[in-house]
Structure formats: C-alpha cells, structure tokens
C-alpha cells in the first residue's frame, strides 16, 4: 500500500507528465486559456489515459510478450489509444447526447496527445501489476490535469496583467511554464525515509 502511494505521488508530482517528462505540451499551451476548459480537458484525458493504459497493459502482457511481438508495441498502443478515444466518444454519446454535445470537443484532441502514448510506454518499462499500472496511469493523468489547471489559473491572471508588448501572449506563457517547471523540481527533494 505504501509502495503504491509513493508510486502515485511520484507519478503525479515528481515525474510530472508535463513539467518533468515534457509530454502533452500541445494541449498544455492550447487548452489552458481558461480554468474550466482546462479542467474539462484534464478530466477527459484522465479517463482516456486510465482506460487505455488498462487495455495497453493487457495487450502487452497477454499478447505482445507471449508471442515475442514487442517490436509492434508502439503501433499497437497507438491503435489501442485511438480505439479507447472512439469507445469513450461512443459511450458518452449513448450515455447522454447532451453531455456529448458539451464535452465532445475535447475527445478528438486526446487522440493526438502524446502524453497518452507516453504513459502507456512508461508502464511497460515499469513492469507493474495491472492495478499498479492503472494507478500509475491515473496518478500521471491527475498530475497532468493539476498542472493544466494551475497553468490556466496563472494565464487567466496574466491576461489582466500589464505585460510588456514583446512578451505578450505565448512568450510570457513559456516563461511562466518554465518557472512552474522549476517549482515542480522541488518535489524531487521529497524524502521517502
């Protein structure tokens, strides 16, 4: 239990998907203009990363490993992720068409989010159990969502600030992102003793 908890904290904070592994930067800069859209995208991505990681783990352990098909891993995982996004889209449309109309905007973006594939590939390197892999994926995506929301909050405040003309827009966004990344480096000093 303690191992799982430490692994989840590590995945969410110390090895944050965005600020430590530099994955998912497209959505990090593109969907963080408002907190609510960042939260919506974060929740959608969390769902897809967790579900696709379960499927990726099963494919890796019960198909690719036994038959020596490890060289097909990346292609297979991309297929699994695309299927997971399609499954999510179909399911939400069936569960509630109104919800789908409201939230469907995020789903096509997730297919092209490299954080989803990145987390799946990290699972393979970790040699975890199914529950461990799923919790790792969940914690990684919670870390992703948390950074998205923090950065969106900062950008909402930046929009009201008097930024010098040369730094307005993306430049000040990148500067803030780098400061945030440095702040998150502080988590690597967490003692486990």
């Amino acid at each position, binding site marked *: 239990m303690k191992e799982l908890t430490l692994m989840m904290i590590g995945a969410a904070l110390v090895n944050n998907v965005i600020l430590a592994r530099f994955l998912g930067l497209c959505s990090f800069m593109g969907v963080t203009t408002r907190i609510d859209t960042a939260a919506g995208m974060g929740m959608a991505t969390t769902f897809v990363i967790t579900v696709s990681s379960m499927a990726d783990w099963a494919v890796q352990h019960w198909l690719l490993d036994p038959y020596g098909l490890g060289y097909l891993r990346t292609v297979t995982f991309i297929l699994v992720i695309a299927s997971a996004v399609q499954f999510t889209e179909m399911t939400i449309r069936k569960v509630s068409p109104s*919800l789908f109309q*409201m939230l469907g905007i995020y789903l*096509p973006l997730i297919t092209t989010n490299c954080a989803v594939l990145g987390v799946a590939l990290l699972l393979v390197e970790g040699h975890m159990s199914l529950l461990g892999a799923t919790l790792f994926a969940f914690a990684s995506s919670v870390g992703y969502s948390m950074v998205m929301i923090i950065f969106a909050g900062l950008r909402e405040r930046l929009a009201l600030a008097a930024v010098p003309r040369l730094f307005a827009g993306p430049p000040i966004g990148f500067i803030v992102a780098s400061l945030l990344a440095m702040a998150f480096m502080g988590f690597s000093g967490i003692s486990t003793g």
Partner: protein
Amino acid sequence: MSRDAHTVEGIARVVRIENDVAWFEPEQTTSCGHCASSAACGASSAATGTGTGIGSIARRIEFRRFALDNANDLRIGDRVVVGVDDRALFRASATAYAVPLVTTLAAGGLAQALFGDDLLTLFSMALGLFAGLVVARIAARALGRRGELAPRILRHAVPGETCQTGM
C-alpha cells in the same frame, strides 16, 4: 469584447430551421493544428471538418448538432455565440468521466485485495466501468432535466470572429 466570467462561449452556425426550432452546428477548434505538420495531422482537419468517413471530424461535428428555440429569428448560415455555465461544464465533465473512473478503480482495488489475480482484476474493472457508466447516465438525465446541459444563445457572432479571436 466583454464576456461573462462564468460562461464558456463557443461559435455555432445555423444549419437547419424547423418551425420554431433552429439546429446549430458548433464550429470546431483545436488546441493545435497550426504547426508545420498540420497538413498531415488529424487535429488540423478538426478545424476544417474535412473527411466524411466513420469517426471523421465531419461526422463528429454532425453528431454534435443541437437544437434551440429560434427566438431571435435566425436564418440558415447565421453564426451565433452560444454559451454554457462553467459550473455546468464542470459538473458535466465530472459526471461523464470522474464517476466511471472512480467505480473502475474501486472495483479494481477490491478485486486485487480479494483475489490477487490480474485477470479477475481486469474483469472487475470492466464491470466497475460499466456500473459507473450506468450511474453517469442516471446523473446526466438529472442534469438534463434541470436544463443545465443546454447551451443558450448569447449574441450574433461578429464577422470574422472565431473561438480564437476576442474571446
């Protein structure tokens, strides 16, 4: 351009008029699609709606059509700014994604503690996901009955206005 701090806005185009009801199609935007690889990237086609096959962006946008009362005498082709309450968006996201995820993880944790077998854990997680989707369906119906999921027309869109400009 002023905007309500608690409203998430988007632009939609009128595609059909039926008596007093107008059907809208949201204009799709992407977080990326502006890079050097946009010509070959699936995300960029989201902005243009090209492609009509199963799972294509055009099909996705078609599925996202919605109807509202045509109180503003809108005509086919009119572009309007529609908005939803940001708290409603958050509740909708939580209903659709968080509820099934919580039940999936809870079922997986329980199965792992009881059986300690990966195959049974996977089976339990699938059951948990299904149960969560059923709960989400019930919660979404309740939200829909309260009218929290329906967007409202805010104003006509200014010519040339997109989700990326002035919003």
